[in-house]
């Protein structure tokens, strides 16, 4: 069985680790001291680039690359730490804030030193009352001990950290929405470009990083790049010639919930498979896995055919899903996928910020269609049409058969794809919220189509056995371009 490798979470359960003295006993702030004593700021930025660290917030963008976009001659530059953890299924940041806030402060200090940043805002969810209290206390202590404020440890480095409470809006977890909210406005995302790295909060260059990403920095500096890159797989990106390395290095705080025996946060090397993770989390609660959401509710669902998919940024992207924030939700054979989709669509219809028309009107529309199907009023035509699928010649086309027309399913796909098209990956909205809506809507419907059809046909929710409810990969055009990545070492 895969073993947990606790790095960020290593000392999480040590009593009073939230106090400076105890944190100090466990190498606290020594990594920061090492950074300022042994390295120049540019060295740190290079280390982060070489480590292959990818942002843990959701997009999985290379942290080193993000830092390289920040112009060094425009001051002040800001760091925004994104602690607005609201993606359903994700809860790893909350434990860091509540139990080990000094680790985050150390990560912030290293980032500030590398980027020449003097002011950091930690945008923390309004609901995280305890987390904010603990972080505020830790910041106060760090000021008293001389690790924050003016002229830190006699190096001339000035860093201030302020916490900024949110007020319950999901969209403020999007980086430009966060910036708007931080400026005291409605949290409606901005058009990109200009990217926050160039023009962010208060019109100045801004680095926006997730809590988990920042918490990785002390370990990269403390133990070196070589140690860090040993963890997790590095793939070859064969789109370029010669292939470029595509690192998925480090550990990930996998949050697993739903139908498993021991839900919780497990820190593991990136790249383990879905079924391995379920085993680590005490096994499945129930008989059979029906579906797995691999990266928070925005991620396209995986079926029982895909349990061998590796849970890392590259593999999941190739499987037409995403690792996102690492919130894994497992569903067993008793769950009805229509019902699950309805729950998720209610969430998105509530959380749409209302800025872009396709999303403002599209999300409630999708919700209403799913609600109608779940209520047993789904619409079905009496006519039939030619069926498309894998034809005799092995290519996608007319199979020569006919199929029934489920109008509401066609409508659902059409509305969702007009908010954001999941096949072409283009969205008609300013931010990626649009794709976060249509991804689950379309993927649930395509992969569990028999269950949707049954609900419309029977006029009530019908939970089919797993094998009958799932569309096999070869019949599903969502899978058509799927291929398994090769390890870089195998080349």
């Amino acid at each position, binding site marked *: 069985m895969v073993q947990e490798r606790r790095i960020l979470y290593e000392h999480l359960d040590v009593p009073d680790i939230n106090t400076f003295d105890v944190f100090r006993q466990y190498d606290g702030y020594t990594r920061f001291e090492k950074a300022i004593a042994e390295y120049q700021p540019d060295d740190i930025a290079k280390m982060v680039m070489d480590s292959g660290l990818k942002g843990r917030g959701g997009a999985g963008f290379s942290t080193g690359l993000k830092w390289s976009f920040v112009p060094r001659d425009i001051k002040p530059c800001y760091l925004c730490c994104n602690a607005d953890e609201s993606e*359903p299924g994700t809860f790893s940041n909350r434990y860091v804030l509540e139990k080990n806030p000094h680790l985050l402060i150390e990560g912030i200090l290293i980032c500030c030193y590398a980027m020449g940043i003097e002011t950091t805002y930690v945008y923390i969810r309004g609901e995280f009352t305890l987390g904010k209290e603990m972080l505020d206390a830790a910041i106060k202590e760090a000021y008293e001990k001389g690790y924050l404020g003016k002229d830190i440890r006699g190096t001339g480095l000035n860093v201030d950290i302020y916490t900024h409470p949110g007020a319950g*809006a999901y969209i403020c977890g999007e980086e430009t929405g966060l910036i708007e909210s931080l400026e005291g406005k409605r949290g409606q995302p901005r058009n990109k470009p200009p990217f926050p790295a160039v023009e962010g909060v*208060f019109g100045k260059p801004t680095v926006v990083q997730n809590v988990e990403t920042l918490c990785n920095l002390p370990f990269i500096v403390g133990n070196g790049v070589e140690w860090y890159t040993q963890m997790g797989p590095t793939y070859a990106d064969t789109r370029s010639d010669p292939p470029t390395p595509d690192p998925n290095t480090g550990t990930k705080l996998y949050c697993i919930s739903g139908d498993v025996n021991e*839900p919780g946060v497990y820190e593991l090397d990136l790249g383990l498979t879905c079924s391995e993770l379920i085993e680590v989390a005490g096994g499945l609660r129930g008989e059979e896995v029906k579906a797995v959401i691999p990266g928070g509710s925005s991620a396209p669902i995986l079926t029982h055919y895909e349990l061998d998919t590796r849970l890392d940024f590259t593999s999941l992207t190739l499987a037409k899903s995403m690792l996102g924030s690492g919130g894994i939700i497992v569903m067993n054979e008793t769950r009805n996928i229509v019902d*699950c989709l309805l729950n998720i669509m209610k969430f998105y219809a509530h959380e749409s910020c209302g800025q872009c028309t396709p999303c403002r009107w599209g999300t409630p529309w999708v919700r209403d269609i799913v609600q109608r199907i779940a209520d047993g009023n789904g619409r079905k035509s009496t006519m039939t049409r030619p069926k498309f699928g894998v034809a005799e010649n092995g290519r996608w086309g007319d199979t020569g058969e006919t199929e029934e027309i489920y109008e509401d399913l066609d409508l659902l796909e059409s509305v969702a794809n007009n908010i954001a098209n999941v096949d072409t990956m283009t969205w008609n909205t300013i931010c990626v919220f649009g794709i976060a809506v249509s991804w689950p809507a379309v993927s649930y419907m395509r992969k569990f189509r028999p269950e949707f059809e049954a609900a419309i046909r029977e006029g009530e929710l019908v939970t089919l056995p797993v094998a009958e409810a799932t569309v096999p990969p070869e019949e599903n055009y969502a899978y058509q371009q799927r291929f398994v990545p090769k390890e870089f070492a195998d080349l």
Partner: protein
Amino acid sequence: MSDKLIQIETPFVFNGENQREFDALIGRYPVKEAAMLPTLHLAQRQVGYITPAVMKYVAEQLEVSVMKVKDVVTFYPMFFEEPVGEYVIRVCHTLPCALRDCKGVLDHLKAKLDTDVASETNLAKGTTPDGKFTLMKVECLASCDVAPVIMVNGDLHKNLTSEKVDEILNDLSEK
């Protein structure tokens, strides 16, 4: 809405402690407007909800228009424009909690408190007549490993069952 803004009954000012906190807040940002969210949190802590008088006061303090404050207040679900109960009970009903029967918890709370669930535009619907509790559904509270969860004011209660809900309500009623 315009009527509400004009009918300002009792003027609002920060009390001593909140004024001190506000003074510390304002120095953190290069522009005053950025202190909007923390300032509104302070004000809501003092009077329980955001009254028109609060909006006017906050607007003056931050040197923005009242409309801009209203704009922000209406956007964020954590700011209330109507009075709420002494204890606001937030029940998470997003997928991971739904898989662990949050509906049972919600139904139990509804029966126990003998009230409906508040909607964002009608908080009174979910408030008990004695003004002690307000029951509302919220989206993910980022505690999916200990689902189902509820949040009573700032405190999170985990792994709920009907018995645990009874205990929590008893504790609160005695206070």
